């Protein structure tokens, strides 16, 4: 395969910390292999900045293989960049053309305050999970999996929802900063399984209450979240969340 090197211009959001106002800073990056990942391209730039004594650009990442949900970045007006169903760490430079200007912004939502540069605090998601995204079981021997039959369609739908890696791209994409795609994935994957049944009602009520406390907006079904989600979580999960909520709310004591 032909190997190309790219010369690019970057417009990167730089912000010292949560209390300062940030601004875009322009950088030129040259001789970038189109086989590099987007984060490797930023690594190259950071190496250069370190050598020249400048503060490197802070951005989140961990696994770099599309499974952990740590990477973020709002690239040229789309969370996780131009490719569909993809994380930023799995975005490769062949997505761009020589001479392109790439604008890189952090996730924007009051509920995700900026820590530094492109790094935001997604602790709100952890607190939502703590509010109900679990099943309570006694410790001891694991029961035989086959003793609990599960309908295949439900198992598949549950698994599809469990694919959510909690990256927050749905919030970043949503004009309402709504976290409902994330929440609906977490509620659905347990609501579809018998193991989730005992806490089914309290789970959805508590998780929605925590989501509201964190300051996320209300879903208006525009579908931007679904289009930006690296794990293709379906917006149908939000409808399921609404049903779970209505049911729990109407029957709660």
């Amino acid at each position: 395969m032909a190997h190309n090197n790219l010369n690019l211009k970057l417009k990167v959001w730089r912000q010292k910390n949560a209390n300062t106002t940030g601004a875009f800073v322009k950088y030129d990056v040259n001789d970038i292999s189109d086989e590099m990942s987007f984060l490797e391209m930023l690594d190259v730039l950071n190496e250069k900045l370190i050598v020249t004594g400048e503060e490197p650009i802070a951005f989140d990442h961990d696994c770099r293989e599309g499974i952990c949900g740590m990477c973020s970045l709002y690239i040229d007006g789309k969370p996780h960049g131009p490719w569909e169903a993809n994380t930023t760490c799995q975005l490769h430079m062949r997505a761009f053309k020589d001479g392109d200007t790439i604008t890189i912004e952090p996730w924007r939502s009051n509920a995700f305050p900026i820590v530094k540069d492109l790094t935001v605090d997604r602790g709100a998601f952890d607190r939502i999970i703590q509010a109900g995204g679990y099943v309570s079981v006694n410790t001891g021997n694991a029961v035989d999996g086959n003793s609990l039959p599960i309908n295949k369609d439900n198992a598949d739908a549950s698994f599809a929802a469990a694919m959510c890696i909690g990256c927050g791209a749905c919030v970043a994409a949503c004009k309402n900063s709504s976290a409902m795609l994330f929440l609906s994935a977490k509620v659905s994957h347990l609501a579809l399984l018998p193991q989730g049944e005992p806490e089914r009602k309290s789970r959805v009520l508590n998780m929605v209450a925590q989501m509201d406390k964190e300051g996320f907006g209300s879903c208006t079904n525009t579908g931007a979240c679904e289009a930006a989600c690296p794990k293709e979580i379906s917006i149908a999960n939000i409808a399921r969340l609404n049903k779970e909520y209505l049911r729990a709310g109407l029957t709660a004591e």
Partner: protein
Amino acid sequence: MTFKQMFTSSVGKKLIMGFTGIFLVLFLVVHAGLNACIWAMDGGVMFNRAGHFMGSNVVPRILEVGLFFFIFLHIIQGYMLTLQNRSKRAVGYAVNYSKGSKWYSRSMAILGTILLMFFVIHWKHFWVPSRITGVEEIKLPNGVEVHNLYAVMQETFQNIWVVVFYVVSCISLAYHLAHGFQSAFKTIGVHNKRYHAMISCIGYGFAIIIPLAFAMMPISFYLHWVN
């Protein structure tokens, strides 16, 4: 959990939008159906009779109270929701993400504002004369005296600007419904893919047919297709 908590959460507010939206959709069916009587080509006899029934029978009058309540609930909740949602992102993006969603799904409040302006003018044209200031009476063939709302329509729609405004409002309604119809069912919890595909299909059909029927009414009078 109290009902107040339930309907004031982020999901609860949407439930109110969804349920009131569906009620308004049902109202549109009744309204369009009654108004279609202008095309009976009988000089307005059937239309005036239908209007008289709606004005004199107790059931539509009770529903009318509910209708006003739901319209105001929908409008107030709609604006509050929009403002609250906007406030959740203090610093915006330099490049907007517009590819993932349709423009009209992001513009429900603007489309709704056009509809609100329309309601005010529409009530002034028809509701106020009919209920408050009075409308000239006409005798139906069976001898009953009724408001001649048909004549009011004829007169109102001789003004080209009124006709243009009604047509623009119908276009806003079409887009509001193109998103709103299917969205409302998602909001109240219909997640079954088969049903959702069906509802989307009906929703787009509804969003075309109903506003088109409404838009044809002023046009029909202006062009004297009905007399």
